């Protein structure tokens, strides 16, 4: 949906530069302070904890795990099944039918996962307050950063990382999905985008998919037709200062078509992007995201691929959600979050063929899924 009131209409004489989003993933920042209790580990640890919780001794638990989830008689030990999307994987009865606890997590008890601590996390101050619960952004050093999603996820091994390492799960899905998923677009309109000034920032979905380059990254300079569907159209007032692009908070919505990022939506959306000389944009996108959106991504992936404790994340996110109180239940439905975003130059066109966004700059040599092949850290 379109952003809030008071958005300046783009000036007819202005320049519009088009971009296509080449990479997006949860912005992680882990260091030795993040998980003082040792962290939530990986799938082996999740299975071990469940066996211990079901009454198995530690030695028996390790033996079962070592045998691949099978006891000494060769029988499958159900509780070691990781919660996937198929019902027979560790099904529990619900209305007499087996269901996957990943999909109906309230059937399980809250295992009480460890949440991420420490001083730093990427993101923005969304609520205008600096509280002891808040973080400091490691790049901008903004204080009062609200990022409860990081607390929920940060102590799982797959998230307990920081750049240039990228969350494995998300990078795999992004690399696979973009070849069939309509691309996500950004455009920036202003009088002269080579200088500081006021701008308009627009997000849209495209009718085309991304083009790959010779590295398997995202090709710069391709052309994308803008999907006229208003559900993915969001407009923000923004500012460029010292080659950093920021926006006034508003609502963002992008329809996706992939396992991860079925939909991307935020309220209180914040942006902080560096405008590189090669024409690309990279930085942080943050805001309050409906936490069930993210849980849904993880549940589809299942615990085997996603490598998190699904009921654990469910309960943690429900508890840590810090916005969007449901009018009936009073429970918060959205959680503060931050994502790393990268966009490369692209042409935009309307469905009638009119070119409305220019591609400026050759783009980076290693982009999107190929970004981690760049010789120096981004």
């Amino acid at each position, binding site marked *: 949906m379109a952003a809030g009131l008071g958005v300046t209409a783009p000036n007819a004489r202005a320049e519009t530069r088009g971009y296509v989003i080449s990479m997006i993933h949860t912005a992680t920042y882990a260091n030795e302070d993040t998980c003082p209790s040792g962290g939530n580990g990986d799938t082996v640890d999740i299975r071990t904890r469940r066996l211990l919780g079901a009454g198995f001794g530690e030695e028996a638990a390790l033996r079962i795990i070592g045998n691949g989830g099978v006891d000494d008689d060769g029988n499958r030990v159900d509780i070691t099944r990781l919660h996937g999307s198929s019902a027979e994987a560790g099904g529990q009865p619900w209305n007499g039918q087996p269901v996957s606890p990943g999909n109906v997590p309230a059937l399980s008890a809250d295992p009480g996962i460890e949440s991420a601590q420490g001083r730093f996390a990427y993101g923005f101050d969304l609520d205008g307050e600096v509280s002891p619960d808040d973080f400091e952004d490691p790049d901008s050093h903004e204080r009062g950063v609200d990022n409860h999603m990081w607390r929920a996820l940060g102590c799982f091994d797959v998230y307990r990382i920081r750049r240039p390492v990228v969350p494995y799960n998300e990078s795999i899905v992004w690399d696979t999905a973009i070849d069939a998923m309509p691309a996500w677009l950004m455009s920036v309109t202003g009088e002269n985008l080579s200088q500081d000034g006021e701008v308009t920032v627009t997000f849209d979905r495209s*009718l085309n998919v991304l083009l790959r380059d*010779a*590295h398997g990254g995202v*090709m710069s*300079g*391709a052309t994308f037709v803008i999907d006229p569907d208003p559900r993915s159209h969001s407009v923000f007032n923004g500012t460029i200062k010292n080659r950093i692009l920021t926006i006034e908070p508003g609502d963002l919505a992008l329809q996706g078509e992939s396992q991860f990022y079925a939909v991307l939506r935020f309220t209180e959306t914040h942006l902080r992007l560096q405008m590189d000389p090669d024409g690309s944009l990279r930085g942080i996108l943050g805001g309050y995201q409906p936490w069930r959106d993210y849980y849904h991504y993880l549940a589809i992936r299942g615990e085997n691929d996603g490598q998190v404790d699904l009921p654990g994340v469910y309960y943690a996110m429900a508890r840590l959600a810090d916005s969007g109180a449901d009018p009936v239940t009073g429970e918060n439905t959205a959680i503060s979050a931050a994502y790393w975003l990268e966009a490369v130059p692209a*042409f935009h066109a309307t469905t009638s063929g009119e070119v409305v966004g220019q591609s400026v700059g050759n783009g980076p040599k*290693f982009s999107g899924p190929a970004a981690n092949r760049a010789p120096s850290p981004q």
Partner: protein
Amino acid sequence: MSAPRGYIRWVARASMLGVCLGLAAPSVVAEESALVRLTPAQYERSIHDIFGESIQVDRGIVDPGVRENGLLALGARKLTLSAAALERYESLARQVALQVTDDRHRTTLIPCTPVAASAPDTACAAQFLSRVGLFLFRRPPTDAQIQSYVAMAGSASDTLDDFYAGLRAALVGMLVAPDFLFRVERTEPDPAQPDTYRLDGYSRAARLSFFLWDTTPDAELLAAAESGALDSTPGLYQQIDRLLSSRRMEDGLREFFSDMLGFDGFATLSVDASLYPKFTKNVADDAREQTLRTIAQHLLDRNADYRDLFVTRDTFLTPALAAIYGVPLPRSQELGGAVPWVPYRFPDNDPHVGLLTQISFLSLHSHPGTTSPTLRGKAVRENLLCQRVPPPPADVDFSLIQDTSNPAFRTVRQRLTKHRQNPTCAACHRMTDPIGLSLEVFDTSGVYRTTENGAPIDTSGTYRRQHYSGVGELAPLLRDDPAVTSCLVNRAFSYGTARMPSDNELGWLTETRTDLVEDGVTWRDLMRRITQNPDFYTNVAD
């Protein structure tokens, strides 16, 4: 400028007259037949035309051709088939024969059924093989040949207890016979000119068909050969008209320009992906197709002047090509569908103008990691102007070539200073480098740039004493150079006859060039003039 041109025309006409009066010395028209090796493309097209498009031909390059005097077609006149190539052709022949005789195809392709499927049937074999032989050998097989192939079929049927296996064996024999793999251009005495020879009707049909359509003569052309129609002017002209008005002209045109522009180089093109991320594997294929499609539209659909290919802004693009050219190309998305080719016209202020700025030219004549003005200039001279650039001498000391980190030599133009200043180098390099330097704003992958290592790129130069700044100003100078047209005319003639023109033919070619420059260098006109020239249907002594 009409006086000199008129003078040249007069001289040309005088020399032609001289030939007719026996005053000039014509080259010897030969009695002997000529052998021209079929190209892999001609092989495939012949099989498809004779047996149908559903026959799969797994081509895979068989034998590399050799470029002689600028054309692979001339090399085909000199080459034979190596053992490795024949091995491959025999294997291909077995695949084709297997499909032709399988259940799906035999009802349509084999006109008779054998008395018994497990035994020889001479009559049916003879019926099939003589019909097929006519098309494969491009002339009726002799009685001795038919007997030989029927015997092959019979003996194989006996050994393998299978009529169709026998037919397959004989068909393989035909497909590896020299009569199929080579064009045997036979001659007969020319009744109009005693003591000279001309191609016989079937050889005329073949030469005409391979020239205009790059394929084997069809049934109507073979019938015209048989009836003697091709030996008479009206009969020949009628067939020429028929071939010229067909859509199949595009096949012939594409093969000719692929040869003339050196597109066989695409097979070994290597552009460093780490330096040029936009040059994906698809781009090389797309680039080749873009140029051929542009030429086909220009010369066939629009019947436009060949020279304008140097300055045209009209072309076709795919999304990947558009990204390299830096232009927007809105496209509808058909997930999993074929790559769309979109007609595109570069805007007037866009630096892309004509063939020289297309990726096919720019990338084919560069090094994998850097541009090469010398290679690009040489390609223009040799491929488009038919001028020969001498090879570099031995024992040249390149120790004065500077490294790229030297701040005084940041652009290629600066690094090639030695080429221009040293008189030994300059003699040849002044032929190539100025042309190539005008294209330096396009890197190896075809991407436009205005600076190199931070220094601005200077694209000025001189061509035939006229100054230009950038390829936008050089292109019209090339277009107006008569050498561009002579080159096309001479190459086309050589391509069609698989030989270099003889001395008196050169005179005729010069006159043709002059006429076309005045009337417009259109493809069909050029093809008509060549194929209506009786000299086109002669062999020349070695």
